[in-house]
């Protein structure tokens, strides 16, 4: 059963902002198992985004080790990190970040062009329930629809892990739930490891495991023996 995807050991991340040092992460240890749904919960400034960026190979720790399977990410070169993101990571942003000049389907296709074993773009658009709207530009889609396209785009590469940074943060209640359902589908049906950060405690209910962060530290870790489905949670 133990099949760690990420192994984080004693990781600290210090930013220097002008003359001030900000300790974003302090001596964090974490193991992420393949296929699990991990929710990282915490208020803003707790270090959850920093942790996500380190796992996604977008940032490097000041000290400590971040391993993806056998690959050490701390100290990897820019090109190696790009390669890592390209092959293994799908990313869902709070503000969707679709390419505005490409249609929904083209946004998904864009990801398939760089992946070694991509999934079918049309199928992915269908999976997120937007089969009819693939020809629309982002400016013609609602926020929820844009986020679903973003998920389709992230999944189309067939990544090992899907990193979601406040995926419902910019959405209303109902749309947020729809998006979470889509993410749940991806996790349960395709088996993609899901790491989701949020400050919304209610969402924690859908995770297999939940870690709470405060001031750059993991302060609590709970395992949900019975994760809730998105329909069941309320906020």
């Amino acid at each position, binding site marked *: 059963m133990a099949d760690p995807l990420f192994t984080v050991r004693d990781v600290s991340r210090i930013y220097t902002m002008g003359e001030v040092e900000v300790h974003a992460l302090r001596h964090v240890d974490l193991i992420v198992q393949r296929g699990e749904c991990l929710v990282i919960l915490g208020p803003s400034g707790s270090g959850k985004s920093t942790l996500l*960026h380190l796992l*996604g190979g*977008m*940032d490097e720790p000041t000290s400590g080790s971040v391993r993806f399977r056998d690959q050490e990410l701390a100290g990897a070169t*820019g*090109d190696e990190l*790009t*390669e*890592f*993101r*390209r*092959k293994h*990571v799908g*990313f869902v*942003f709070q*503000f969707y*970040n679709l*390419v*505005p*000049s*490409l249609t929904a389907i*083209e946004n998904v*296709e*864009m*990801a398939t*062009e*760089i992946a070694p074993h991509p999934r079918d773009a049309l199928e992915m658009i269908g999976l997120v329930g937007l089969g009819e709207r693939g020809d629309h*530009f*982002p*400016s013609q889609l609602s926020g929820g629809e844009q986020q679903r396209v973003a998920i389709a*785009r*992230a999944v189309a*590469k067939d990544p090992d892990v899907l990193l979601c*940074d406040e995926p419902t943060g910019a959405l209303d209640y109902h749309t947020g739930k729809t998006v979470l359902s889509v993410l749940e589908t991806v996790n349960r049906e395709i088996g993609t490891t899901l790491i989701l950060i949020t400050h919304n405690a209610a969402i924690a209910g859908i995770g297999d495991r939940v870690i709470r962060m405060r001031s750059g530290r993991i302060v609590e870790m709970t395992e949900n023996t019975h994760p809730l489905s998105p329909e069941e949670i309320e906020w």
Partner: protein
Amino acid sequence: MVRSLDKVLLREIFRMKGQAIAIALIIACGISSFVTILIAYRGLKGTRDAYYRENRMADVFAPVKKAPRSIARDLRQIEGVRQVRPRIIFDVTIDLPQISEPCFGRVSSLPDRREKVINDVHLVSGRYFTDDGNREVIIGDRFAVEHGLSPGDSVEVIMNNRKEALRIVGTALSPEFVYMIRGAGDILPDPVHFTVLWMSTSFAESVFDFEDSANEFVAVLDPEARVRDVLDNFDRILDRFGGFVAYGRKDQLSHRFLSDEIEGLKGSATVTPAIFLGVAAFVLHMLLGRLVRTQRTRIAVFRAFGYTTRAISMHYLKLAMLMGLVGAIIGSVVGLWFARHMLEMYTEFYQFPILRFSVDPLVVATGVLVSLLFAALGAVAAARKAARLRPAEGLRPEAPGVFRRTAVERWRWLWTRLGFVWRMVFRNIVRTRRRAALTIGGVALSTSIIFLSLFSGDSMDELLDYEARYVDHHDLKVTFNSERGLPALYEICALPGVRSAEPELVLGVKLVNGYRAKRIGIFGLDQEGVLRGLLDKDRGPIEKPVSGLLLTRKLAELLHLARGDEVEVHVLEGRRQVFTATVEGTVDEYLGASAYASIKTLSRWVGEETALNSVRLLANPERRNELATELKNLPAVEGVSIREQASKVFRETLAASMAIMYTVLMLFAGVIAFGVIYNSTRIALAERERTFASMRVLGFTRKEVGAVLTNENYLLTIIGLVPGIGLGILFCFWLSTVYDTDLFRFPMVIRVESILISIVVVLFFTLVANLAIRRRIRRLDLVEALKSRE
């Protein structure tokens, strides 16, 4: 209150220093060309005017065969004439032992004692004539320098059929020979082979058997005198002495070349800077438009604090004007430096005692003012937009970009084969049409400037090539000092190395068609001759004239004559008769404005069976030097020109002056191409930073992300090349129209090599801009860009 906005201003400039510098550089190009041209213009004109004043440059030149000096008194009585000086002018051959080819001198007499005369010399070294001015000569300073001659040395001169050794007493310059050119038909000065020899009047009188006589009268007029009337009166009085028709200063050769240059400078002083400043204003307009869009929130905050709309608009105006000011300062410094070099370059062609370079504060101040004006012009729209923004409106995020399908997508076959990068490129070009148009325009302008700079060289090459291939087939051309008969031709034929020779008779005439008249030289050609080609506009050979005249196209235009028309020919030599001749057709030539007739016709006009005053000949290449030496010792020979050598000098002189022009124009073209592309790409990058950062997060490499921008630039560059070449060709047409004078015309020639070079150079500039952009993409902060919208 304003102080904190000013702080923001400085920081903003610093943050976008790359773009600010690019804009400042475009402005600097405009201002530097403005300052260079204007300072050079004022320098050249000021120097010329002062030099003319100082040395009393003549207003009227009246050559005659031979007239008593005392006629000067009659001439002085003419209304408007202030002063008249008789003088003796003769063309002679100079024999310098160190070079095989002959050199030519124009003897010009000066008073025995130094006095303030018309067309006075400016002594550079040595002194004026002694009391016994015999065998003393003052020579052109440049010629002396070229041949290492100085006062005290002597030169051998063949004058009036005698070889004499003359002692150099001084070297000098003259306002008549600022442009040291021998005669019409020459374009470039040849200070190595041609000089003026000044002699005392009494010495010249004795050498040329001209006691108390002169063959030219020069005069200075009252400023308000009517030149036309004065010239008519000169002609009337001098007619019986074999007057060759007096001419005014505006037709004096050196003055014409100099004045054409000065007028040309004046003309380009406004056009060139306006182009650059226009481009700069446009780029500024784009940049500040983007800045206001991305700074909506900040503007709203300032407005909410209570800053006035005036302060906000002033902020953006100041931002632009600061760039304008920096550009103007760089431009002025560079412009002054250029102007100095340009004036130095002019001394290569124009011989002045000193070429005055002065930093004219008025010119610099105007430059600064104009650049501020253009900068403000570029900022007006942004400033107004900023002022109009309501605080509440600005605090809401701007709506996302709306994209549409493009025309390219109609070709499904092509579209489906394009990767997402090209799809993004096409859609973005269509969305940001105006910015794309600016880039295309900048590229086009840059291409056309490069093409134009190459064209001037191509055109010169073409001209020389044309002359060599179609017009002048001779190796040497010998000119006699007076008309000769056939024996002179036979004599030349007998010289060593001569393979064939053809006679030619050049006659000074005035062609008159109604009220239109033009003084020209008619070339009388041998009917069977092959050494002088005549061509029509399609370069097809034209039969040599039989009884009538062939006119160059330009001359026919000037006189409003066409094939079949009749024209009055006033012969200005011999018995000075008037004939009527039929125009048999026109010929196309690039140099001079002349007419052609059969040598028989011309001989008849001067009352001879066969007369000639020059011979074209082909020579054995290995005996050419020997031949040249023989020729320069023939007393009757007034001039020898070696075609190969003349075109070599021409090419070299031109290449030297053009090298500088090439460099400057290429630099300017580069600044425009780079400045426009870099700026619009930086704007695109700023607008789409988030998209690019997201792509990087998704695993796209820097190169792939960069391709979205760089491919767009390459595509726009390629699109811009087409109108660029078109515009360049238009510029060339324009240039060849402007320079379509009776002295000289630019052949219109479009070389594929030049088109290719222009394309390669512009693509190189695009590459440089793209590399600069790559650097920015490498520095893209992934995390920062994803956090939130501004």
